[in-house]
């Protein structure tokens, strides 16, 4: 391992070993009740993947020079991707898909996520290998089904994002993960509630401050979120999920603890710990910035023109009819 990698990993271990402080920040805007003002429009777009790619194993961070090489390469590869037959490209990734996204349709940012001055190679900071801990077989099955759906017999068997019910890839969360596009969020804050409006599928998270969770029989698509301040950090605890949402194959007993710290005028540091013993061998933690961005976020009226679902179910009916004739 190179010296630089060793130093980076060492720093990460120190970071993980230390208790999470209630970070205090000076120079950040504050609301009238004295808490940091998290309001505004933010984006978590980044090319840092959730899990550290195998080719970067053992390397938790990148220097700016290293990151610049990969970021430039990433943009160039995307340019090359334009106008080429997708078959060979997708086959090379192991996909059997037909592809179809022009580079212009993607909006996942162009940089690795920067935290504490250095760029990260995975959103996961714990476990230190940057990988989701071992998943149960059932969680693996649920995760796969969240991509592909079940049968094509009913609209109810299709993935939630295909049905425009919630965004794909846990963009609304919690945890709020960056995805291919529409990684934009608006936060509105009062002493009693914090609202996070998610651009994708206009999901709205309402966090009740200093409240207790709803009874266990009350289940919600985005879970039941309650919040409190620890110093200058907003801590949000979410339980009471449904058995329909599929955050990396988690069950309805998923427990997510998020921490929002406005570290400067243009940054909220976001950290979330995901716990679900039925799905993951141990809890795991992600961390990355939400950066201030120009508004507005736009309406995402997904049902308005969801012709795709018609095509998908119609395609299955056509296939059945053809099979019946043969």
């Amino acid at each position, binding site marked *: 391992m190179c010296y630089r990698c060793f130093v980076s990993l060492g720093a990460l271990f120190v970071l993980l070993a230390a208790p999470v402080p209630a970070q205090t920040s000076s120079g950040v805007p504050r609301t009238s009740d004295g808490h940091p003002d998290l309001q505004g429009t933010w984006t978590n777009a980044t090319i840092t993947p959730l899990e550290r790619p195998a080719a970067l194993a053992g390397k938790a961070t990148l220097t700016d020079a290293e990151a610049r090489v*990969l970021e430039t390469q990433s943009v160039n590869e995307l340019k090359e991707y334009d106008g080429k037959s997708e078959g060979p490209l997708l086959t090379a990734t192991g996909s059997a898909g*037909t592809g179809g996204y022009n580079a212009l349709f993607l909006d996942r940012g162009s*940089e690795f996520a920067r935290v504490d001055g250095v760029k990260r190679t995975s959103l996961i900071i714990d476990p230190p290998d940057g990988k989701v801990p071992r998943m149960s077989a059932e969680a693996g099955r649920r995760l796969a089904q969240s991509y592909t759906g079940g049968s094509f017999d009913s609209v109810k068997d299709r993935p939630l994002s295909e049905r425009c019910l919630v965004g794909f890839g846990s963009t609304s969360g919690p945890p709020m993960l960056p995805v291919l596009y529409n990684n934009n969020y608006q936060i509105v804050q009062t002493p009693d509630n914090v609202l996070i409006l998610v651009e994708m599928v206009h999901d709205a998270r309402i966090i009740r401050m200093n409240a207790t969770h709803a009874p266990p029989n009350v289940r919600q698509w985005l879970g039941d979120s309650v919040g409190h301040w620890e110093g200058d950090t907003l801590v949000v605890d979410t339980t009471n999920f449904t058995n329909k949402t599929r955050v990396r194959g988690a069950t309805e007993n998923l427990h997510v603890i998020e921490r929002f710290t406005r570290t400067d005028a243009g940054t909220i540091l976001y950290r979330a710990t995901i716990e679900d013993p039925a799905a993951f061998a141990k809890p795991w933690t992600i961390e990355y910035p939400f950066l201030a961005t120009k508004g507005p976020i736009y309406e995402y009226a997904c049902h308005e023109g969801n012709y*795709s679902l018609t095509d*998908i179910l119609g395609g299955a009916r*056509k*296939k059945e009819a053809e099979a019946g004739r043969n």
Partner: protein
Amino acid sequence: MKMKPFGVAACATLMLGAAPAWAHHAFAAEFDAKRPVHLVGVVSKVELINPHAWIHVDVKGPDGKVTTWMIEAGSPNVLLRRGFTKTSVAPGTPVVVDGYQSKDGSLRANGKDITLPNGTKLFLGSSGTGAPYDQKK
């Protein structure tokens, strides 16, 4: 150079591996890889609607009969941020579309690449331009 061992492989994984799975819908569920289409026609309408914008293209067949195809593009939220509006392509604009027809056999196809007669691509961009993430700098 120390970058070399992980450079190319890492980026290939970052860029291409994630794209097909993490979208509004799986393309393989909607479009048929065995039915590529090459359409030459004129734009009749642009629908800037979610979850995907659709560009309607009138295509004249060998028999002179005109059929209207709908071509699926990206989320209008992204397109607007990149400067593509409802009026960016005027009705009557000739275009060439290469894509795949929908599995149900309707006159719909994906439109990753739409080209104007002079060879210019209708959608030309990279994740490093125009996005809010980049504009703040």
